[in-house]
């Protein structure tokens, strides 16, 4: 399904990924969803939210929610440092900041180098958000489905309510 959509879009953004690190693993999100990358900033915590939603930040006057990708993957939390970054993504007119350990680079991964996620290994963190595994030289990039990352499960309902 998904790949079909991607194939239909003849787009220069096709195959471009912004990669970032969580621990030692490199992950990638599609460039077309990325608005910008900013350093970590003061996050205003909000009540009544799932734990991976850290709160909101003030991005030049815009108030946008922030999701900690580590917590989203049910990984152990880590203190934020000066290398911690927020990747601002925009999907369905919704801007959300993703807190990652650090951003890596912009990569071009052709469609033929992307394999579907392995079905067997359920233990990979955030497996349910994987859209494919991209191979660049010897490294494997876990490519994330930004849509799922943001909107899966309960958040869908939340959004529906909002």
């Amino acid at each position, binding site marked *: 399904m998904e790949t079909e959509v991607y194939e239909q879009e003849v787009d220069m953004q096709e195959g471009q990924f912004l990669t970032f690190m969580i621990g030692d693993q490199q992950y990638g999100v599609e460039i077309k969803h990325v608005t910008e990358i900013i350093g970590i900033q003061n996050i205003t915590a909000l009540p009544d939210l799932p734990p991976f939603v850290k709160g909101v930040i003030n991005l030049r006057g815009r108030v946008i929610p922030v999701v900690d990708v580590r917590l989203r993957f049910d990984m152990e939390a880590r203190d934020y440092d*000066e290398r911690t*970054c927020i990747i601002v993504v925009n999907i369905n007119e919704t801007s959300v900041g993703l807190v990652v350990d650090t*951003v890596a680079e912009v990569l071009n991964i052709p469609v033929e180098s992307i394999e579907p996620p392995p079905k067997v290994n359920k233990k990979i963190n955030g497996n349910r958000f994987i859209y494919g595994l991209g191979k660049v030289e010897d490294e494997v990039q876990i490519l994330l489905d930004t849509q799922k990352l943001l909107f899966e499960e309960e958040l869908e309902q939340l959004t529906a309510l909002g």
Partner: protein
Amino acid sequence: MFKSWFTNNVNSPSGSYSTDEPIKVVRRKRQYKTGKISISDPQLREEIRFLGITEKDLGIVATWQDIALESIDDLVDVFYDHVKSFAPTLQVLNRHTTVERQRPMLTKYIKDMFNGVIDDAYVQNRRTVGIVHERIDLAGSYYLAMYEVIRDFFISLLKTISATDEEIHDFSESFNRLIQVDVALTIDAFNKARQEKIEQARIRQEELFTELKSTVMALVEDATSGQLGSRVDVSRKSEELHEVLSDLNKMLDALNAPVDEAVAVLQNMASGDLTVSMRGDYQGDHSRLKEHINTTLERQSRLIKSIQNAVEQVASGASQISDGAQSLSQSTTQQASALQEITASLTQIGSQTSQNAQNADAACQLVDSTHDKGQKAVETVGNMKNAMNDLKDASDQIGKIIKVIDEIAFQTNLLALNAAVEAARAGMHGKGFAVVAEEVRNLAQRSAKAAGETTELIQGTIAKVQNGLTFTDEVDTSFTAIMQDIDKINTLVQEISVASREQNEGIKQTNSGLSQIDKATQGNTAVSEESAAASEELASQAAELKKLLAQFKTQAGAVEEKPKVAFEYN
């Protein structure tokens, strides 16, 4: 409760009667069986008949055999309960056997009573019981009582099964007679066994007496002939006599011991050994003998010892005088030469002391100049410390700047990434821009790397500077300590200088005193040589006397007049 249920059960086969309601069943009188008496020994047969028992009695008793057998276990329990309830019987029981071991025997015994037959085996069995009772020393009166227990049990058993009074009466009569037979047989066996035992003991006593008599007679014979050392060989005699004969041997030993010892002591005395004495523990006359011999020995020993002591004292005194005279003469000579040496040494010391004083003065000057140099070193170290601190501050400052550069590199990296994102989003149009963004990113990463490396270097420098500072601090501390030491040395050297001069003065005075001593020493030497010759003569005569006296060995404790120690010096 259980008991009563049990007995009920016994007398009513259906078992459905309750204890509360005594049974009123009119029943037929039992058909009595016929017993039999078949004893092979006619005399015994007569005896039994004399006791009044008939074959009819045996039959009556046997009639109740089935009932008796049913409750025999119960009876045995009652029997032993009774045995245990009386201390003497309980004691006997516990000493020789257990209820469990006895139970089958007792059961058989009682069963036999209901067999309705008295035959040889029956008689033999009763007799065996009597013999056993004799062996375990169970008084007949006690087991008579036990028969009563058995009888009571059966009578009450019959009552509970509603035997007619007549039946009970018959049973009681017959059973009594059977018991009397049993008792007679048992007691007879008991008595016979006991008599046999007494007779055996009497024969043994006679044999022992004969043996004892012959043994003692032999011993007396030996003693009369002067063989006081003769003894009885106990192991070859009967066991019963061992104790008496051992005691006899011991008595002979006691009589003989003082004589032997006195002989040995006197023999030693004859050979001049006065150290021996009688040590045995004797009684009566023997004790007096020991006392006299020991006193004699002691007095003699003491006398010899006193002489020896006197001679010893003379000899040692002479030798002492001789030695003293000799050493006096010797030391006087030595003294004279020593005095000369001292005088020479003192002269040398005198010159060294003044050299010392001069050296001390020189040292003083040296220390002063060291102190000055040290002072300068301290100042230099202080300057060095400041310089180090400045270096550290500068390093810190550089570290901060590097951090800023690193931060800028990071921000630039972010910007470049953002630019890359924008370029990617711009598609074809952004391609050129993407290249630039990539370049910028590379630069940023290179700066970050360089900054990282620099940071490492700077941190190394900071660490080294810190090290240097620590060292400098240590040096500073050391220098301060040295300075203090130098001050101390200075003081000391000055003190030495003063002391040296005073010493020099003292030596001069000592020298003049020494020459006076020298003169006196010369006079002494002549006198001491004369007295040495006289004392040597005396010593040689004393030694002769000592040789003579040494032939006697004396007792250690005999000397009391003067402590030997006073003369041991030599």
